[in-house]
């Protein structure tokens, strides 16, 4: 049931709304169908980010992809947790206790794919913050899982942190290639991801010079 609800919400309603009204330009994400499992690593500037990433996914795999979210915010009450688990398909992790990595690892072992924002909390519009090392630690524990870098531009202009008003803005999402980490050390993996993200950002700056 949840599978179809997610499909209708994201591939149907939210995707067309983001495209036509908000002005988000989606990258083709059909290449994800070739992958059994992946971890999407994305920059984070707005609540819209999760919506955009979910709406960009091919409809048939939406229910298998879980955005990782902070339990202290999205799981503040039982009700809130249930709502975000059902409608956003979140995987709630606790930011403070050490169980976060274990929770994510377990989800990957159960066959889910993940969406992770390694910058943690949402930052200033169109500014990147330093990545936290959790994602690298997770990837080093699951060496067969590929990561997919995703870069979003403009989401912080649509709905910045601390402001509920949505204002349309011509923005975009682009994906990099699914990649296996070529090191098993946390620092090495983190550097690799940061490098990929930077490349993605520069590449798209050239292509979308007039967006």
């Amino acid at each position, binding site marked *: 049931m949840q599978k179809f609800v997610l499909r209708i919400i994201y591939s149907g309603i939210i995707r067309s709304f983001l495209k036509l009204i908000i*002005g988000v330009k989606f990258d083709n994400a059909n290449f994800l169908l070739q992958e059994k499992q992946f971890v999407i690593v994305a920059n984070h500037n707005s609540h819209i980010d999760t919506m955009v990433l979910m709406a960009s996914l091919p409809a048939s795999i939406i229910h298998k992809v879980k955005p990782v979210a902070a339990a202290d915010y999205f799981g503040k009450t039982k009700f809130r947790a249930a709502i975000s688990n059902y409608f956003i398909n979140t995987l709630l992790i606790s930011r403070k206790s050490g169980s976060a990595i274990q929770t994510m690892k377990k989800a990957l072992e159960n066959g889910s794919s993940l969406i992770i924002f390694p910058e943690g909390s949402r930052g200033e519009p169109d500014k990147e913050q330093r990545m936290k090392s959790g994602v690298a630690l997770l990837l080093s524990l699951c060496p067969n899982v590929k990561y997919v870098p995703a870069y979003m531009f403009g989401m912080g202009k649509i709905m910045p942190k601390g402001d509920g008003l949505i204002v349309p803005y011509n923005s975009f999402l682009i994906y990099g290639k699914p990649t296996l980490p070529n090191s098993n050390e946390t620092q090495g993996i983190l550097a690799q991801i940061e490098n990929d993200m930077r490349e993605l950002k520069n590449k798209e700056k050239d292509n979308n010079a007039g967006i």
Partner: protein
Amino acid sequence: MDKIFQLSIFENNDILIIVGLIFSLLSVVSLGLFIFGKIKPEANIKELKARTKSWWVMSAMFVSATVFSTKISYIAIAFLSFVAFREFYSLLGFRQSDRRAIFWAFLAIPIQYYLAYIGWYGAYIIFIPVVMFLFLPLHLVLKGDTNGIINSMARLQWILMLTVFGISHMAYLLSLPEIEGFSAGGRGLLLFLVFLTEINDVMQFIWGKLFGKHKIIPKISPNKTWEGFIGGVISTTVIGFGLGFLTPLSTEYLLIVSFLVAVAGFFGDVVMSSVKRDIGVKDTGTTIPGHGGVLDRIDSLAYTAPVFFHLVYYIAY
């Protein structure tokens, strides 16, 4: 349902002629390009092909939004304004503290088009130049961020005038009262305006490519030449004369109006070119393959629509 799809296209010969003309013209161009590509496979006409393909799509969208029902036309033109406004403001870059004023500027779009739809001319004509002009700065001031506020005030109003007020004249053509003995009506005027503006762009391009030598304004647009401009204006005036059955104008007025539409189209084009040069982009977007952004295509319309509307309104209504 009957009301929405009146299908008056089949009852109105004038409209049928212009629609037929648009698609035969496109067919000839596509066929010409196809044959040219076969004869000279080494010639690089990829961009021309992409452009023609986009013309097909745009014409099909425009014709289906125009001929079936005027209600759909209002909504379609309002959406065009919306996309152009969004594209333009995203391009210019605003402060985070302008978000509320921008949101209100977005809300002005449905209001402006609703006023056009109900045909309340007095309110329609002052809504953006007066009401929004006074109202939007108020929102910026209330936010309290004065650093760069004049920039935001000026830019926001100018974008609104160009993409919403200017373009909405296309919609008001449909609300003009009926004139006895003039069967094409507002729909005919709209088709006339859009066809003439776009053919003017194309004609200026073709004349410039074939005979262009003397640059008009090399600092802004190095591709614009006197030969292209004059050839374009003359061709457009002649074509406008030939399409006179879509307007209620007499011959001499028809020639004057067509001439001024051609000149206005040129100015709309170079004004947008100068803006793009200032920001440092070649196109305003990537929405239309071969053309650029939506704004790249309707820049001349933002100029020709008010010019055409007010001339016709003054002369014939």
